[in-house]
């Protein structure tokens, strides 16, 4: 999906992804609330988030908070359920169960200039940003971007039989980025520096709480830095390489502030995660139409903390991928085989010193993709893919529940796509049907042990997912008038098949609705743009015990935005949840009601 660079469009990647079929966004509410995605009922740990082809890593819990990525810099957001088949991918791209691509690397197409944008509205949000791009020398491009946001995060919500205001949900962040790229005959390179600092509160779940005790006084401060880059070179007409690297350093300070909340458990913890990554991708066109790709990645990750009995885990991961593609005009087939091996080492809390016991894990991951377009208006494709996700540091080494003997969690995926599309004069239309079946096995599940205060993680979960994604789109693009309509529907039957005979066997897994969908309408008339979006999510359960106590009501929200361009200026208003519906995506975390945002921007 091309990111609409309209000031009133969603500014968070999570907002865009909620419009994809088969995607469930988990949102804990508010501007600063955690936002993660799962795709086709695979857990968010299986969804790789790639920024310009380089994976955003979180070795601690494998959850990437999509709230931290702004659409300001993005040109394109793409979701791959199967396997992307383009050349010069990193090995990690082949290893991801599903992949979300955030692409920023297209700014060289745009003319020199800059943009200042100011947004503000509900929750006392003030959000200025500035982008500036210049061609420093022929084909040497620089882009810098800065964004600041402050919001008090306050909104009314129904708390049992009363209405309260969400407290301690404020956030402040500053993000600064710079990109430098050079394009030349047969090659290009790019360097991207990203810094992000934030301070936020967590409002906590809505529970019964004695009057006068706050729900939460928890605060978190984050400082993230990364530097990543790419150098791609076509050495001959047939042989090309791409080298990619990344260094990331993220620091988190989490404090429950018991002096402000007598109900808080007193924690004041600091974490620092560092990772380094190097990838070499090679692609060789053996003979038309046969291309072979070979990619090797090496990654180091380490986590430090002042938490008690912390084992300071370190991990070195090697990933190698061999891919082969045959591509004719109307028929394509691609196959890949990935090997991943990860060495862990850690400090044992009792004995001291470093240990690497039980800590080498490796897997093979194959994939096969077929594509056939019998006529220009009909495309048919199918894929089969088996991927694994490594246990996270929390799974393995969390002081009171880790289990160093865990094996990777497996996901087998089978999917097909049938796309019918057409175009006549200013009209275009498309219908896409995507049935799929996923089987997750050795799912990592936390289970208690003989001691109630110590849990362990085991590879015991199994989930069978049968689903269908449907997308229908009709558009008209005239000179002064444009109309586009998109309908999306997702059916997902995701059943817990972990323990035969248990009360949860055969039940729908938590937070996966059987039915969900969305409706999107876009109108353009001269310099006016109008967007309407309705998202519908069916009922779900918050536990795999599908009982009335854990029923989560269906919800729907409608957003509308209006934008007007005036030469170098653009002004817009975006209204969300216009019918002021009360709803929860995650039980205990109410979402905001009606809210709005005004925006103005100046381009030069």
């Amino acid at each position: 999906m091309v990111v609409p660079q309209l000031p009133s469009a969603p500014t968070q990647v999570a907002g865009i992804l909620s419009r994809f079929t088969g995607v469930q966004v988990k949102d804990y509410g508010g501007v600063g609330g955690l936002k993660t995605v799962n795709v086709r009922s695979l857990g968010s740990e299986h969804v790789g988030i790639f920024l310009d082809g380089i994976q955003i890593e979180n070795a601690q819990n494998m959850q990437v908070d999509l709230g931290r990525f702004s659409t300001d810099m993005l040109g394109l957001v793409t979701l791959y359920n199967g396997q992307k088949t383009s050349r010069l991918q990193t090995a990690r791209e082949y290893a991801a169960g599903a992949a979300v691509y955030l692409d920023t690397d297209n700014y060289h197409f745009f003319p020199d200039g800059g943009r200042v944008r100011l947004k503000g509205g509900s929750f006392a949000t003030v959000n200025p940003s500035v982008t500036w791009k210049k061609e420093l020398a022929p084909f040497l491009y620089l882009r810098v971007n800065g964004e600041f946001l402050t919001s008090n995060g306050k909104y009314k919500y129904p708390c049992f039989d009363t209405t309260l205001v969400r407290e301690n949900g404020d956030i402040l962040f500053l993000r600064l980025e710079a990109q430098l790229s050079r394009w030349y005959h047969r090659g290009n390179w790019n360097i991207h520096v990203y810094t992000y600092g934030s301070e936020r509160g967590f409002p906590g779940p809505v529970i019964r709480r004695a009057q006068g005790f706050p729900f939460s006084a928890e605060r978190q401060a984050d400082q993230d830095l990364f530097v990543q880059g790419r150098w791609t070179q076509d050495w001959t007409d047939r042989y090309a390489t791409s080298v990619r690297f990344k260094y990331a350093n993220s620091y988190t300070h989490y404090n429950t502030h018991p002096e402000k909340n007598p109900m808080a458990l007193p924690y004041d913890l600091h974490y620092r995660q560092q990772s380094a990554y190097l990838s070499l991708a090679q692609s060789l066109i053996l003979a038309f139409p046969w291309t072979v790709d070979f990619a090797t990645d090496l990654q180091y990750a380490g986590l430090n903390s002042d938490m008690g009995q912390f084992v300071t885990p370190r991990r070195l991961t090697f990933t190698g991928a061999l891919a082969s593609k045959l591509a004719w005009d109307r028929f394509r087939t691609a196959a890949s085989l990935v090997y991943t091996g990860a060495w862990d080492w850690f400090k044992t809390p009792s004995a001291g010193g470093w240990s690497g016991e039980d800590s080498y894990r490796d897997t093979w991951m194959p994939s096969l993709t077929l594509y056939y377009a019998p006529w220009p208006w009909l495309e048919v494709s199918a894929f089969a893919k088996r991927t694994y996700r490594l246990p996270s540091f929390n799974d393995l080494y969390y002081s009171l529940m880790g289990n160093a003997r865990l094996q990777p969690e497996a996901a087998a995926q089978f999917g097909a796509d049938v796309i019918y599309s057409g175009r006549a004069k200013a009209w275009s239309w498309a219908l896409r049907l995507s049935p799929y079946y996923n089987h997750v096995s050795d799912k990592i599940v936390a289970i208690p042990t003989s001691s109630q205060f110590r849990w362990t993680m085991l590879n015991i979960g199994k989930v069978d997912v049968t689903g269908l994604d449907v997308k229908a789109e009709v558009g008209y693009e005239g000179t002064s008038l444009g109309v586009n309509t998109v309908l999306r529907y997702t059916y997902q039957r995701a059943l817990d098949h972990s323990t035969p005979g248990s009360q949860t066997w055969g039940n729908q897994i938590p937070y996966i609705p059987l039915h969900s969908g969305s409706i999107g309408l876009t109108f353009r008339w001269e310099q006016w743009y109008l967007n309407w979006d309705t998202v519908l999510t069916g009922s779900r359960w918050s536990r795999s015990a599908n009982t009335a106590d854990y029923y989560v009501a269906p919800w729907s929200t409608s957003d509308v935005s209006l934008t007007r361009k005036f030469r170098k200026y653009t002004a817009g208003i975006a209204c969300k949840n216009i019918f002021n519906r009360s709803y929860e995506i995650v039980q205990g975390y109410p979402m905001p009601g009606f809210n709005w945002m005004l925006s103005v921007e100046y381009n030069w």
Partner: protein
Amino acid sequence: MKKAFLLLLCGAFAFCACQKDRVPSKDSTLDGKTVDVSFISTSAQKLFVLNEGGMGSNNATLDFLRFSDGKYITGAFKKMNPEIAAGLGDVGNDIAIHGEEAWIVVNNSGIVEVISAYEETEIAAIKVPTPRNIAFDNTYAYVTSWAGAYVTYGADYSVADSKNPKGQVYRINLNTKKVEGSVEVGYQPEGIACYNGKLYVANSGGIASQLPPTYSYDNTVSVIDAASFKVEKTVEVQVNLKIVYSDGTGNIYVTTLGNYWDIHSGLYMLKAAAPEQVNWVADYVSVSALCGDTVYCIGTDSEYDWSGAPHTYSAWSVTGGTKKALSLTLTETTPYGLAVLDADTFLLGDAGDYFNPGTVSCYYKGTKRWDVTAGVCPGHFALY
């Protein structure tokens, strides 16, 4: 669970005998699954089961087993108090009966909920920060609390030690249901028992073990003089103490959770007359309960095997410091709470996966008779 006042459970108290001419309880219309109670001999009317729920999920629930017709009723608090929209609250950590009242400690709600034991209707909701366990004497209810160090009771908070705070015992006037002071004890106090004018408090250090500077568990029992409400003695027992029982004859029992590494869980005994002398009784205690003057324990010697292999549990009892093995073959995988009605009749809460509703099973003369679906983490019992 396994709380100090399980003594009250044990059918030894016949305070229900004088209730024959009462109006029928409003809860008599509540219906549930029928289980076989024909072999249970008790003068009690019902057995309350407190399901903890999951932290942050606001799903603590109160069930009870009615002995008159064998009905197991789930979610009784919500059904009898529909006007309390938030339900019982978040993490039900302890329940004990005092007279005609059931006192329920709702840990993460900061509430000690007092209800009519006769018909589960609310009498009072008392504000106490992170309350854990409860015990009574004739004048007060005593509630252990983890976070008390931050609070001078009232609207204001004052900081005593923001890095590694000690816990408190709050006392609540039984008549007025008002908090009347608190006393500082050790780190993260858990179980409490009252005997002969003294309170015995088990300090766990469960949070202190993860915090600088020492990263260590507490290992002490605080002995409080109830009259002066001051700590009299601090006795070292073993790391990570959990539950205290008084057998009513001068013996105080304390269970420990161990350090999950090389010190195992266990049961220790001290004499009220000379609490400094601590005797180790036995290792491996997963769940325990008091009935009369006897402490019943169920545990496994493979408790630190995290591989997921099934554990084999064994049961034993202790009377006057003397251990006796019991014949009881558990089918449960994750025992979470225990009630002993008499030497033959055990009710066991099984937490299952801790996330979905668990079960309550009844064992009679060593074999399982039935089980019934309870709420999430059925861990605490009280007999009325």
